[in-house]
């Protein structure tokens, strides 16, 4: 007899949380404290030496954040997780465990613009080199792998284009290369895609987007799939070699299949310091309770809006993987059968000026640089986030002058369509 497995919606409400044993509080309390008292010197020593489970200092762990960590780990089917201050913080903490100066990461060319910046500029200054590959051409990942490669990094659904990545094909490349596959699952959320089930070893999120879902709190998270053997060929000494600050403990030997999450916590978060506020963790947890309901509505609305735009005379093209005939429709049907997400781009026949006009005429869509809010959002990358690039570079990064990006919210779809209709006609 094995235990019954709960469904996704049950995990979204319950995983990681239980009534507080001291007060009986049913909602997760906000433990807004920097530090936690020790029972005695031996207890303190055993916590610092990683011999006991428990709380020391909120930069390393906090009971509110821990509920969030366990919940996202459960939703992704991972062994453990670590919440941090932002999605960017998650990426730097993950790679700090894997990379040394001179090492390389192979990354999909189609990434969130902020990630491209982080990889190109900050990581380069650490001596971490990036080899870019094209997710539409799997062989380009194979060609980019060298003996210095330590990881492969992709987005499950890419921002801003909304294209769907063939995770299993790239996981096969990573397995052959003997490196972990890291998947940024921000735009899909585990409601739509669970990358670990498709061969990913590590999942990262900006919790700021659909998981938190209400546009009110920044956060990031790292999920350990528990699937990678860090000690196999000594490529990852942070996990396989004795740690001097912990008296010679080997992290993987001690923590088994959740060693990567522990390394991110007791080495990465401890030293780099991007801790998540417990208040933000509480806000994000509250958001996650309704993730399945919101995400389905986001996707259903997005499909309706994409269909409307595809039939509009002012629109040149719509890139939404949920539309039949879209280049990524087959991948969307395989990886995200419940919906192709709610972030996509479309282009206007009127070019740059039409893009600027549209944004200024919309009355329900908010013009801002975020995605994954309950509210519908719009941005014209060419006049904002990508304005510093020349036209050729804009086109290459998916931000051509005529391109508009939408993040569809959970309002009534007819109101969103009416708003777009009046703005396109104005």
């Amino acid at each position: 007899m094995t235990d019954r497995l709960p469904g996704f919606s049950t995990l979204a409400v319950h995983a990681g949380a239980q009534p507080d044993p001291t007060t009986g509080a049913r909602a997760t309390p906000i433990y807004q404290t920097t530090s936690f008292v020790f029972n005695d010197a031996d207890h303190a020593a055993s916590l610092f030496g990683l011999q006991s489970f428990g709380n020391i200092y909120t930069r390393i762990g906090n009971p509110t954040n821990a509920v969030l960590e366990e919940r996202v780990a459960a939703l992704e089917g991972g062994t453990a997780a670590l919440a941090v201050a932002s999605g960017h913080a998650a990426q730097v903490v993950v790679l700090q465990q894997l990379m040394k100066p001179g090492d390389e990461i192979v990354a999909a060319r189609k990434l969130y613009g902020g990630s491209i910046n982080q990889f190109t500029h900050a990581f380069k200054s650490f001596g971490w080199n990036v080899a870019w590959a094209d997710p539409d051409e799997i062989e380009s990942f194979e060609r980019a792998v060298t003996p210095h490669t330590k990881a492969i990094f992709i987005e499950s659904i890419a921002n801003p284009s909304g294209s769907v990545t063939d995770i299993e094909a790239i996981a096969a490349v990573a397995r052959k290369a003997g490196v972990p596959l890291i998947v940024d699952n921000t735009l899909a959320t585990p409601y739509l895609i669970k990358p670990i089930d498709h061969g990913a070893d590590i999942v990262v999120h900006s919790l700021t987007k659909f998981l938190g879902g209400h546009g009110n709190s920044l956060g990031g998270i790292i999920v350990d799939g528990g699937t990678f053997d860090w000690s196999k060929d000594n490529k990852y000494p942070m996990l396989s070699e004795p740690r001097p600050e912990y008296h010679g403990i080997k992290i993987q030997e001690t923590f088994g299949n959740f060693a990567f999450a522990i390394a991110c916590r007791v080495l990465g978060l401890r030293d780099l310091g991007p801790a998540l506020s417990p208040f933000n963790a509480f806000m994000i947890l509250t958001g996650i309770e309704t993730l399945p309901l919101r995400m389905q509505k986001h996707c259903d609305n997005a499909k309706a809006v994409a269909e409307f735009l595809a039939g509009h005379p002012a629109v040149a093209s719509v890139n939404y993987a949920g539309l039949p005939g879209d280049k990524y429709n087959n991948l969307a049907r395989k990886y995200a059968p419940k919906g192709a997400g709610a972030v996509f781009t479309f282009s206007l026949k009127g070019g740059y000026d039409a893009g600027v006009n549209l944004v200024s005429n919309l009355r329900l869509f908010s013009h801002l640089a975020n995605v994954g809010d309950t509210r519908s959002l719009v941005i014209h990358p060419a006049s904002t986030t990508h304005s510093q690039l020349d036209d050729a570079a804009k086109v290459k990064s998916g931000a051509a002058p005529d391109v508009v990006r939408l993040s569809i919210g959970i309002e009534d779809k007819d109101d969103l369509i009416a708003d777009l209709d009046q703005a396109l006609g104005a």
Partner: protein
Amino acid sequence: MNHDTYPDNYIRGILNSVKSIAMVGASPVNVRPSYFAFKYLAERGYDMIPVNPGHVGKSLLGKPFVASLADIGRPIDMVDIFRNSSHIMPVVEEALRLSPLPKVIWMQLGARDDAAAAKAEAVGIKVVMNRCPKIEYGRLSSEISWMGVNSRTLSSKRAPMPTQGMRLSLNRMSVGGGETAASDRAAKNKTETT
């Protein structure tokens, strides 16, 4: 018994019923996983006996090392084997010569010997393989959740009050909280590489 996945009730039943645990391969070196597990279980009230012929004459947290299971000289409830899979069978055979027999034979994380397990189960001994009792105690009590680890348990019941500061009780009502891909994939990778 299916030794790929164990119901939580099976593991909780074992950890709630055994009182004495002989740990074969216990290390006095305080950064070894066996030391961590020994100390954790001793702090939770188990009567721990360190078994390691290389350390006879020394003691571990005040408990003297013995060379073999036969040297313990009193009944024990559980044998926890901190050895590689290739060293399991002789330890199990030694355990099967004890009188009375132990109630449980537990093989640590990474250790599995199905033939040895079958021998033990044939005489009514419960077997757990490829698990750590410290991790399982931490998981079922939810203490391990403080480290962001997926305990794979859910509960709407107020847990028993913590004791001695932050120690949580094993006697917590819970239901299964999902699965991870980790064990399946690890097993599959092992088959592919061998």
